[in-house]
Protein backbone atom coordinates (compact mmCIF):
# COMPACT_ATOMS: atom_id res chain seq x y z
CA UNK A 1 0.00 0.00 0.00
CA UNK A 2 2.80 2.42 0.93
CA UNK A 3 6.20 2.00 -0.62
CA UNK A 4 9.48 3.91 -0.17
CA UNK A 5 11.90 3.34 -3.03
CA UNK A 6 15.50 4.50 -2.53
CA UNK A 7 14.33 7.66 -0.77
CA UNK A 8 16.94 10.23 0.19
CA UNK A 9 15.96 13.47 1.88
CA UNK A 10 18.45 16.29 2.23
CA UNK A 11 17.38 19.53 3.89
CA UNK A 12 19.32 22.41 2.41
CA UNK A 13 22.13 23.13 2.72
CA UNK A 14 23.44 19.74 3.83
CA UNK A 15 21.34 17.93 6.45
CA UNK A 16 20.85 14.38 5.22
CA UNK A 17 17.85 13.07 7.16
CA UNK A 18 17.10 9.92 5.17
CA UNK A 19 19.71 8.13 3.11
CA UNK A 20 18.56 5.70 0.42
CA UNK A 21 15.69 4.25 2.42
CA UNK A 22 13.47 1.50 0.95
CA UNK A 23 10.64 -0.41 2.58
CA UNK A 24 7.04 -1.37 1.97
CA UNK A 25 3.95 -1.40 4.18
CA UNK A 26 1.13 -3.74 3.19
CA UNK A 27 -2.58 -3.09 3.70
CA UNK A 28 -3.72 -4.03 7.18
CA UNK A 29 -0.26 -3.92 8.74
CA UNK A 30 0.61 -2.31 12.07
CA UNK A 31 4.07 -0.78 11.73
CA UNK A 32 6.01 1.15 14.32
CA UNK A 33 8.80 3.48 13.32
CA UNK A 34 11.32 4.12 16.05
CA UNK A 35 14.47 6.15 16.28
CA UNK A 36 16.15 8.82 18.34
CA UNK A 37 14.88 12.33 18.34
CA UNK A 38 15.89 13.92 15.05
CA UNK A 39 16.23 10.55 13.33
CA UNK A 40 13.75 11.54 10.62
CA UNK A 41 10.48 9.90 11.70
CA UNK A 42 8.36 12.99 11.18
CA UNK A 43 10.09 13.71 7.87
CA UNK A 44 9.25 10.21 6.68
CA UNK A 45 5.60 10.65 7.66
CA UNK A 46 5.41 14.06 5.97
CA UNK A 47 6.56 12.46 2.74
CA UNK A 48 3.65 10.00 2.78
CA UNK A 49 1.28 12.96 3.06
CA UNK A 50 2.95 14.90 0.27
CA UNK A 51 4.12 17.64 2.65
CA UNK A 52 7.77 16.98 1.72
CA UNK A 53 9.17 15.63 -1.50
CA UNK A 54 12.10 13.21 -1.58
CA UNK A 55 15.36 14.72 -2.81
CA UNK A 56 15.83 11.50 -4.79
CA UNK A 57 13.74 8.33 -4.93
CA UNK A 58 9.98 7.83 -4.82
CA UNK A 59 7.16 7.41 -2.33
CA UNK A 60 4.15 5.45 -3.62
CA UNK A 61 0.64 5.26 -2.23
CA UNK A 62 -1.29 2.44 -3.91
CA UNK A 63 1.14 2.63 -6.83
CA UNK A 64 0.83 6.41 -7.30
CA UNK A 65 3.95 8.50 -6.93
CA UNK A 66 3.00 11.08 -4.29
CA UNK A 67 5.39 13.69 -5.67
CA UNK A 68 3.96 13.46 -9.17
CA UNK A 69 0.18 13.38 -8.78
CA UNK A 70 -1.95 16.51 -9.11
CA UNK A 71 -3.47 18.25 -6.13
CA UNK A 72 -6.95 16.79 -6.63
CA UNK A 73 -5.55 13.25 -6.39
CA UNK A 74 -3.34 14.19 -3.45
CA UNK A 75 -6.35 15.51 -1.53
CA UNK A 76 -8.18 12.25 -2.24
CA UNK A 77 -5.30 10.30 -0.74
CA UNK A 78 -5.16 12.61 2.29
CA UNK A 79 -8.85 11.95 2.90
CA UNK A 80 -8.06 8.23 3.17
CA UNK A 81 -5.43 8.92 5.82
CA UNK A 82 -6.22 9.77 9.42
CA UNK A 83 -3.26 11.75 10.73
CA UNK A 84 -2.27 12.38 14.33
CA UNK A 85 0.49 14.95 14.23
CA UNK A 86 3.17 15.76 16.72
CA UNK A 87 2.01 19.40 16.75
CA UNK A 88 -1.67 18.34 16.59
CA UNK A 89 -2.59 20.66 13.70
CA UNK A 90 -5.97 21.55 15.15
CA UNK A 91 -8.11 24.37 13.71
CA UNK A 92 -7.73 27.16 16.31
CA UNK A 93 -10.90 29.03 15.34
CA UNK A 94 -13.11 25.97 15.66
CA UNK A 95 -14.42 24.29 18.81
CA UNK A 96 -13.65 20.70 19.79
CA UNK A 97 -16.92 19.62 18.20
CA UNK A 98 -16.26 21.60 15.02
CA UNK A 99 -12.73 20.31 14.70
CA UNK A 100 -14.05 16.77 14.50
CA UNK A 101 -17.09 17.76 12.44
CA UNK A 102 -14.92 19.56 9.91
CA UNK A 103 -13.09 16.43 8.89
CA UNK A 104 -16.39 14.63 8.41
CA UNK A 105 -17.64 17.48 6.22
CA UNK A 106 -14.45 17.26 4.19
CA UNK A 107 -15.37 13.65 3.52
CA UNK A 108 -18.84 14.62 2.45
CA UNK A 109 -20.71 13.16 5.42
CA UNK A 110 -24.14 14.66 6.02
CA UNK A 111 -25.21 16.72 9.04
CA UNK A 112 -27.29 13.96 10.59
CA UNK A 113 -24.32 11.61 10.66
CA UNK A 114 -22.10 14.33 12.05
CA UNK A 115 -24.53 15.14 14.89
CA UNK A 116 -24.57 11.44 15.73
CA UNK A 117 -20.92 10.46 15.37
CA UNK A 118 -19.03 13.38 16.86
CA UNK A 119 -20.43 13.06 20.41
CA UNK A 120 -19.73 9.33 20.32
CA UNK A 121 -16.10 9.81 19.38
CA UNK A 122 -15.66 12.58 21.98
CA UNK A 123 -17.15 10.29 24.58
CA UNK A 124 -14.73 7.48 23.73
CA UNK A 125 -11.72 9.83 23.86
CA UNK A 126 -12.92 11.49 27.07
CA UNK A 127 -13.54 15.01 25.77
CA UNK A 128 -17.29 15.06 26.06
CA UNK A 129 -17.46 17.87 28.57
CA UNK A 130 -15.05 19.97 26.50
CA UNK A 131 -17.25 19.85 23.40
CA UNK A 132 -17.54 23.62 23.10
CA UNK A 133 -14.00 24.55 24.09
CA UNK A 134 -11.51 25.96 21.64
CA UNK A 135 -8.14 24.21 21.26
CA UNK A 136 -6.30 26.90 23.22
CA UNK A 137 -8.62 26.20 26.14
CA UNK A 138 -7.43 22.58 26.31
CA UNK A 139 -4.43 21.05 28.07
CA UNK A 140 -1.66 19.52 25.95
CA UNK A 141 -2.99 16.01 26.58
CA UNK A 142 -6.54 17.05 25.75
CA UNK A 143 -5.36 18.60 22.51
CA UNK A 144 -3.56 15.38 21.68
CA UNK A 145 -6.69 13.35 22.38
CA UNK A 146 -8.69 15.68 20.16
CA UNK A 147 -6.16 15.03 17.38
CA UNK A 148 -6.72 11.31 17.92
CA UNK A 149 -10.51 11.70 17.81
CA UNK A 150 -10.25 13.61 14.59
CA UNK A 151 -8.03 10.99 12.99
CA UNK A 152 -10.33 8.12 13.89
CA UNK A 153 -13.78 9.54 13.23
CA UNK A 154 -13.85 8.83 9.50
CA UNK A 155 -12.64 5.21 9.77
CA UNK A 156 -9.80 6.00 7.35
CA UNK A 157 -7.95 3.26 5.48
CA UNK A 158 -4.65 4.33 7.01
CA UNK A 159 -3.88 5.84 10.39
CA UNK A 160 -0.59 7.68 10.65
CA UNK A 161 0.24 8.54 14.24
CA UNK A 162 3.32 10.65 14.97
CA UNK A 163 4.00 10.38 18.72
CA UNK A 164 0.29 10.12 19.53
CA UNK A 165 0.94 9.51 23.22
CA UNK A 166 3.82 11.90 23.84
CA UNK A 167 1.73 14.19 26.02
CA UNK A 168 -0.48 11.60 27.68
CA UNK A 169 -0.41 10.02 31.11
CA UNK A 170 0.05 6.21 31.15
CA UNK A 171 -3.67 5.58 31.46
CA UNK A 172 -4.63 7.72 28.44
CA UNK A 173 -1.62 6.48 26.47
CA UNK A 174 -2.81 2.93 27.01
CA UNK A 175 -6.33 3.89 25.91
CA UNK A 176 -5.07 5.46 22.68
CA UNK A 177 -2.86 2.49 21.94
CA UNK A 178 -5.71 0.03 22.37
CA UNK A 179 -7.84 2.18 20.08
CA UNK A 180 -5.15 1.90 17.43
CA UNK A 181 -4.97 -1.86 17.92
CA UNK A 182 -8.72 -2.13 17.63
CA UNK A 183 -8.70 -0.20 14.36
CA UNK A 184 -5.91 -2.41 13.05
CA UNK A 185 -7.94 -5.50 13.92
CA UNK A 186 -10.75 -4.04 11.80
CA UNK A 187 -8.37 -4.29 8.85
CA UNK A 188 -6.95 -0.76 8.73
CA UNK A 189 -3.29 0.05 8.23
CA UNK A 190 -1.60 1.77 11.17
CA UNK A 191 1.75 3.55 11.09
CA UNK A 192 3.00 4.64 14.49
CA UNK A 193 6.07 6.67 15.29
CA UNK A 194 7.21 6.69 18.89
CA UNK A 195 9.95 6.91 21.49
CA UNK A 196 8.01 4.82 23.94
CA UNK A 197 9.97 1.65 24.61
CA UNK A 198 7.33 0.00 26.76
CA UNK A 199 4.62 0.57 24.23
CA UNK A 200 6.58 -1.02 21.41
CA UNK A 201 7.58 -4.03 23.41
CA UNK A 202 4.01 -4.65 24.52
CA UNK A 203 2.69 -4.43 20.94
CA UNK A 204 4.74 -7.22 19.45
CA UNK A 205 4.26 -5.93 15.90
CA UNK A 206 6.58 -4.96 13.05
CA UNK A 207 9.18 -2.35 14.02
CA UNK A 208 11.33 -0.29 11.67
CA UNK A 209 14.31 1.31 13.40
CA UNK A 210 16.01 4.35 11.85
CA UNK A 211 19.45 5.57 12.79
CA UNK A 212 21.72 8.02 11.00
CA UNK A 213 19.34 8.18 8.07
CA UNK A 214 19.37 4.42 7.46
CA UNK A 215 17.01 1.61 8.37
CA UNK A 216 19.13 -0.44 10.72
CA UNK A 217 16.45 -2.97 11.64
CA UNK A 218 13.09 -4.06 10.21
CA UNK A 219 11.60 -6.96 12.18
CA UNK A 220 8.18 -8.56 12.05
CA UNK A 221 7.93 -8.91 15.85
CA UNK A 222 10.26 -6.13 16.77
CA UNK A 223 11.60 -4.82 20.06
CA UNK A 224 12.73 -1.33 20.97
CA UNK A 225 16.47 -1.73 20.97
CA UNK A 226 18.10 1.67 20.98
Amino acid sequence: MIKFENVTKIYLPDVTVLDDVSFEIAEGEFVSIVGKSGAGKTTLIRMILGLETPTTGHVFFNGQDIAKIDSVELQKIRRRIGGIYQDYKLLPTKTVFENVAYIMEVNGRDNEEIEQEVPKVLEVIGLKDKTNNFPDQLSGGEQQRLAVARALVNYPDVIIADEPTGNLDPYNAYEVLSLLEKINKAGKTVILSTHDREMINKLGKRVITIENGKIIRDEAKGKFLI
Partner: protein
Amino acid sequence: MSVAAIFVLVITISLLTGLFFLHGVNTFLIKTIQEKIDITAYFTSDVLEQNILQVKDELIKDAPAIKSIEYVSKEDALKVFNEKHADNSVLSKALTEVGDNPFLPALNIRTSGDPAQYQEIANILNQPQFNDLIEKIDFSQKKDTIEKVFSITSIVNRFGLALAILLILVVILVVFNTIKLVIDASKDEIATQRLVGASSWFVRAPFVIEGALFGAISFVICFLIAGLTAYFLAPTLAIIMPGFNLFIYFLQNMLLIILIQLGGGVALGVVSSFIVIRKYLKA
Protein backbone atom coordinates in the same frame (compact mmCIF):
# COMPACT_ATOMS: atom_id res chain seq x y z
CA MET B 1 -9.04 43.65 9.58
CA SER B 2 -12.43 43.01 8.00
CA VAL B 3 -13.26 46.63 8.77
CA ALA B 4 -10.24 47.68 6.72
CA ALA B 5 -11.35 45.50 3.81
CA ILE B 6 -14.85 46.95 3.88
CA PHE B 7 -13.48 50.50 4.20
CA VAL B 8 -11.30 50.12 1.13
CA LEU B 9 -14.16 48.54 -0.78
CA VAL B 10 -16.43 51.44 0.16
CA ILE B 11 -13.88 53.90 -1.22
CA THR B 12 -13.58 51.97 -4.48
CA ILE B 13 -17.30 51.68 -5.02
CA SER B 14 -17.87 55.32 -4.11
CA LEU B 15 -15.27 56.27 -6.67
CA LEU B 16 -17.12 54.24 -9.29
CA THR B 17 -20.38 55.89 -8.30
CA GLY B 18 -18.76 59.32 -8.41
CA LEU B 19 -17.64 58.63 -11.94
CA PHE B 20 -21.14 57.60 -12.81
CA PHE B 21 -22.52 60.88 -11.42
CA LEU B 22 -19.89 62.79 -13.36
CA HIS B 23 -21.00 61.00 -16.46
CA GLY B 24 -24.55 62.19 -15.78
CA VAL B 25 -23.41 65.82 -15.41
CA ASN B 26 -21.34 65.50 -18.54
CA THR B 27 -24.15 64.11 -20.67
CA PHE B 28 -26.44 66.83 -19.43
CA LEU B 29 -23.96 69.57 -20.33
CA ILE B 30 -23.36 68.22 -23.82
CA LYS B 31 -27.06 67.93 -24.45
CA THR B 32 -27.66 71.48 -23.28
CA ILE B 33 -24.94 72.83 -25.54
CA GLN B 34 -26.14 70.81 -28.48
CA GLU B 35 -29.66 72.07 -28.11
CA LYS B 36 -28.44 75.62 -28.35
CA ILE B 37 -26.65 75.07 -31.59
CA ASP B 38 -28.40 75.99 -34.81
CA ILE B 39 -27.71 77.44 -38.20
CA THR B 40 -29.71 80.20 -39.84
CA ALA B 41 -29.66 80.65 -43.58
CA TYR B 42 -30.89 84.13 -44.62
CA PHE B 43 -32.29 84.45 -48.11
CA THR B 44 -32.31 87.52 -50.31
CA SER B 45 -35.29 89.74 -49.74
CA ASP B 46 -37.07 89.01 -53.03
CA VAL B 47 -36.70 85.24 -53.11
CA LEU B 48 -39.91 83.30 -53.67
CA GLU B 49 -41.20 81.23 -50.81
CA GLN B 50 -41.36 78.31 -53.17
CA ASN B 51 -37.60 78.47 -53.77
CA ILE B 52 -36.89 78.56 -50.07
CA LEU B 53 -39.02 75.49 -49.45
CA GLN B 54 -37.12 73.82 -52.25
CA VAL B 55 -33.85 74.45 -50.39
CA LYS B 56 -35.48 73.10 -47.27
CA ASP B 57 -36.49 69.90 -49.03
CA GLU B 58 -33.01 69.55 -50.42
CA LEU B 59 -31.51 69.85 -46.93
CA ILE B 60 -33.89 67.29 -45.47
CA LYS B 61 -33.10 64.94 -48.30
CA ASP B 62 -29.32 65.28 -48.21
CA ALA B 63 -28.68 65.85 -44.54
CA PRO B 64 -31.13 63.52 -42.80
CA ALA B 65 -29.48 63.94 -39.41
CA ILE B 66 -30.95 67.43 -39.07
CA LYS B 67 -33.11 67.65 -35.97
CA SER B 68 -35.56 70.25 -37.20
CA ILE B 69 -35.79 72.86 -39.86
CA GLU B 70 -38.15 75.76 -39.75
CA TYR B 71 -39.06 78.34 -42.38
CA VAL B 72 -39.43 81.89 -41.06
CA SER B 73 -40.88 84.33 -43.60
CA LYS B 74 -40.17 88.07 -43.65
CA GLU B 75 -43.57 88.71 -42.12
CA ASP B 76 -43.04 86.19 -39.36
CA ALA B 77 -39.70 87.73 -38.49
CA LEU B 78 -41.23 91.18 -38.29
CA LYS B 79 -44.04 89.90 -36.11
CA VAL B 80 -41.65 88.19 -33.74
CA PHE B 81 -39.57 91.34 -33.56
CA ASN B 82 -42.57 93.54 -32.85
CA GLU B 83 -43.86 91.23 -30.16
CA LYS B 84 -40.49 91.10 -28.53
CA HIS B 85 -40.03 94.84 -28.51
CA ALA B 86 -43.65 95.98 -28.17
CA ASP B 87 -42.80 98.26 -25.25
CA ASN B 88 -39.68 99.72 -26.84
CA SER B 89 -40.92 102.78 -28.69
CA VAL B 90 -37.52 103.82 -30.00
CA LEU B 91 -37.03 100.58 -31.84
CA SER B 92 -40.55 100.47 -33.29
CA LYS B 93 -40.15 104.05 -34.43
CA ALA B 94 -36.88 103.29 -36.14
CA LEU B 95 -38.57 100.40 -37.88
CA THR B 96 -41.48 102.51 -39.15
CA GLU B 97 -38.99 105.04 -40.45
CA VAL B 98 -37.37 102.40 -42.61
CA GLY B 99 -40.83 101.89 -44.01
CA ASP B 100 -40.24 98.65 -45.76
CA ASN B 101 -39.90 95.30 -43.88
CA PRO B 102 -36.15 95.08 -43.30
CA PHE B 103 -36.15 91.41 -42.34
CA LEU B 104 -35.00 88.59 -44.56
CA PRO B 105 -36.76 85.28 -44.95
CA ALA B 106 -34.79 82.51 -43.29
CA LEU B 107 -34.45 78.82 -42.55
CA ASN B 108 -33.65 77.89 -38.93
CA ILE B 109 -31.80 74.63 -38.93
CA ARG B 110 -31.29 72.77 -35.70
CA THR B 111 -28.59 70.11 -35.72
CA SER B 112 -27.47 67.43 -33.33
CA GLY B 113 -24.43 69.60 -32.68
CA ASP B 114 -21.92 67.38 -34.36
CA PRO B 115 -19.30 69.54 -36.14
CA ALA B 116 -19.25 67.07 -39.02
CA GLN B 117 -22.90 67.73 -39.61
CA TYR B 118 -22.10 71.39 -39.74
CA GLN B 119 -19.77 70.82 -42.61
CA GLU B 120 -22.37 68.76 -44.41
CA ILE B 121 -25.02 71.46 -44.19
CA ALA B 122 -22.53 74.12 -45.22
CA ASN B 123 -21.65 72.13 -48.30
CA ILE B 124 -25.26 71.85 -49.36
CA LEU B 125 -26.00 75.53 -48.84
CA ASN B 126 -22.86 76.61 -50.66
CA GLN B 127 -23.80 74.84 -53.87
CA PRO B 128 -23.61 77.25 -56.87
CA GLN B 129 -27.33 76.96 -57.71
CA PHE B 130 -28.20 78.51 -54.31
CA ASN B 131 -25.69 81.35 -54.57
CA ASP B 132 -28.27 83.81 -55.88
CA LEU B 133 -30.87 82.86 -53.33
CA ILE B 134 -28.91 82.95 -50.10
CA GLU B 135 -27.81 86.26 -48.67
CA LYS B 136 -25.76 84.88 -45.80
CA ILE B 137 -25.38 81.87 -43.58
CA ASP B 138 -25.12 82.56 -39.92
CA PHE B 139 -22.94 79.93 -38.41
CA SER B 140 -19.32 80.58 -39.18
CA GLN B 141 -18.80 82.59 -36.02
CA LYS B 142 -20.50 79.99 -33.85
CA LYS B 143 -18.71 77.15 -35.50
CA ASP B 144 -15.44 77.80 -33.69
CA THR B 145 -17.08 77.92 -30.29
CA ILE B 146 -18.90 74.72 -30.96
CA GLU B 147 -15.84 72.91 -32.14
CA LYS B 148 -14.01 74.12 -29.07
CA VAL B 149 -16.72 72.86 -26.76
CA PHE B 150 -16.61 69.52 -28.48
CA SER B 151 -12.90 69.15 -28.29
CA ILE B 152 -12.96 70.12 -24.60
CA THR B 153 -15.66 67.61 -23.70
CA SER B 154 -13.91 64.88 -25.61
CA ILE B 155 -10.61 65.71 -23.91
CA VAL B 156 -12.32 65.79 -20.52
CA ASN B 157 -14.02 62.51 -21.30
CA ARG B 158 -10.84 60.81 -22.41
CA PHE B 159 -8.74 62.24 -19.60
CA GLY B 160 -11.41 61.42 -17.04
CA LEU B 161 -11.67 57.88 -18.30
CA ALA B 162 -7.90 57.38 -18.22
CA LEU B 163 -7.72 58.82 -14.71
CA ALA B 164 -10.64 56.69 -13.61
CA ILE B 165 -9.08 53.53 -14.96
CA LEU B 166 -5.79 54.35 -13.28
CA LEU B 167 -7.46 55.12 -9.97
CA ILE B 168 -9.56 52.01 -10.09
CA LEU B 169 -6.51 49.89 -10.84
CA VAL B 170 -4.70 51.38 -7.86
CA VAL B 171 -7.69 50.88 -5.62
CA ILE B 172 -8.22 47.31 -6.81
CA LEU B 173 -4.64 46.65 -5.81
CA VAL B 174 -5.32 48.09 -2.38
CA VAL B 175 -8.49 46.00 -2.04
CA PHE B 176 -6.56 42.96 -3.13
CA ASN B 177 -3.83 43.57 -0.57
CA THR B 178 -6.28 44.25 2.22
CA ILE B 179 -8.11 41.00 1.55
CA LYS B 180 -4.73 39.32 1.34
CA LEU B 181 -4.01 40.50 4.88
CA VAL B 182 -7.34 39.10 6.04
CA ILE B 183 -6.66 35.73 4.48
CA ASP B 184 -2.98 35.69 5.47
CA ALA B 185 -4.18 35.50 9.05
CA SER B 186 -5.73 32.13 8.16
CA LYS B 187 -2.63 30.76 6.45
CA ASP B 188 -1.96 27.98 8.95
CA GLU B 189 -5.60 27.12 9.13
CA ILE B 190 -5.73 26.67 5.36
CA ALA B 191 -2.64 24.46 5.49
CA THR B 192 -4.31 22.27 8.12
CA GLN B 193 -7.51 22.07 6.12
CA ARG B 194 -5.50 20.87 3.14
CA LEU B 195 -3.62 18.41 5.31
CA VAL B 196 -6.81 16.66 6.37
CA GLY B 197 -7.84 16.33 2.74
CA ALA B 198 -10.17 19.27 2.10
CA SER B 199 -10.70 19.90 -1.61
CA SER B 200 -9.88 23.28 -3.13
CA TRP B 201 -13.50 24.33 -3.19
CA PHE B 202 -14.11 23.23 0.35
CA VAL B 203 -11.30 25.48 1.57
CA ARG B 204 -12.12 28.30 -0.82
CA ALA B 205 -15.87 28.58 -0.30
CA PRO B 206 -15.92 30.30 3.11
CA PHE B 207 -13.33 32.86 2.03
CA VAL B 208 -15.07 33.59 -1.24
CA ILE B 209 -18.37 33.96 0.62
CA GLU B 210 -16.64 36.27 3.08
CA GLY B 211 -15.34 38.34 0.14
CA ALA B 212 -18.84 38.54 -1.31
CA LEU B 213 -20.18 39.57 2.09
CA PHE B 214 -17.58 42.35 2.35
CA GLY B 215 -18.74 43.50 -1.08
CA ALA B 216 -22.40 43.39 -0.09
CA ILE B 217 -21.85 45.32 3.15
CA SER B 218 -19.82 47.90 1.26
CA PHE B 219 -22.64 48.18 -1.24
CA VAL B 220 -25.18 49.07 1.44
CA ILE B 221 -22.87 51.74 2.86
CA CYS B 222 -22.05 53.17 -0.57
CA PHE B 223 -25.65 53.21 -1.67
CA LEU B 224 -26.59 55.28 1.36
CA ILE B 225 -23.64 57.61 0.82
CA ALA B 226 -24.51 58.06 -2.86
CA GLY B 227 -28.18 58.68 -2.15
CA LEU B 228 -27.49 61.23 0.58
CA THR B 229 -24.80 62.97 -1.49
CA ALA B 230 -27.13 63.23 -4.46
CA TYR B 231 -29.94 64.49 -2.26
CA PHE B 232 -27.93 67.21 -0.55
CA LEU B 233 -25.84 68.20 -3.55
CA ALA B 234 -28.78 68.48 -5.94
CA PRO B 235 -29.91 72.04 -4.95
CA THR B 236 -26.36 73.41 -5.22
CA LEU B 237 -25.78 71.77 -8.57
CA ALA B 238 -29.14 73.01 -9.86
CA ILE B 239 -27.93 76.58 -9.34
CA ILE B 240 -24.86 75.99 -11.51
CA MET B 241 -26.71 73.93 -14.06
CA PRO B 242 -30.38 74.88 -14.21
CA GLY B 243 -32.54 71.94 -15.17
CA PHE B 244 -30.20 69.30 -13.82
CA ASN B 245 -31.26 67.48 -10.66
CA LEU B 246 -28.66 65.04 -9.38
CA PHE B 247 -31.09 63.36 -7.03
CA ILE B 248 -33.60 62.72 -9.80
CA TYR B 249 -30.73 61.46 -11.92
CA PHE B 250 -29.88 59.15 -9.02
CA LEU B 251 -33.46 57.90 -8.77
CA GLN B 252 -33.80 57.45 -12.51
CA ASN B 253 -30.59 55.43 -12.69
CA MET B 254 -31.05 53.62 -9.39
CA LEU B 255 -31.04 50.18 -10.99
CA LEU B 256 -27.85 50.88 -12.87
CA ILE B 257 -26.23 52.33 -9.74
CA ILE B 258 -27.22 49.29 -7.71
CA LEU B 259 -25.77 47.13 -10.45
CA ILE B 260 -22.50 49.06 -10.50
CA GLN B 261 -22.15 49.18 -6.72
CA LEU B 262 -23.31 45.70 -5.83
CA GLY B 263 -21.69 44.12 -8.88
CA GLY B 264 -18.45 46.04 -8.39
CA GLY B 265 -18.28 45.35 -4.66
CA VAL B 266 -19.12 41.67 -4.79
CA ALA B 267 -16.95 41.06 -7.84
CA LEU B 268 -13.99 42.80 -6.23
CA GLY B 269 -14.41 40.90 -2.97
CA VAL B 270 -14.89 37.53 -4.63
CA VAL B 271 -12.14 37.89 -7.21
CA SER B 272 -9.60 39.12 -4.65
CA SER B 273 -10.39 36.25 -2.27
CA PHE B 274 -10.19 33.82 -5.13
CA ILE B 275 -6.77 35.00 -6.25
CA VAL B 276 -5.30 35.18 -2.75
CA ILE B 277 -6.57 31.71 -1.82
CA ARG B 278 -5.04 30.25 -4.95
CA LYS B 279 -1.59 30.90 -3.56
CA TYR B 280 -2.24 28.92 -0.40
CA LEU B 281 -3.97 26.06 -2.14
CA LYS B 282 -0.84 25.36 -4.12
CA ALA B 283 1.22 24.84 -1.00
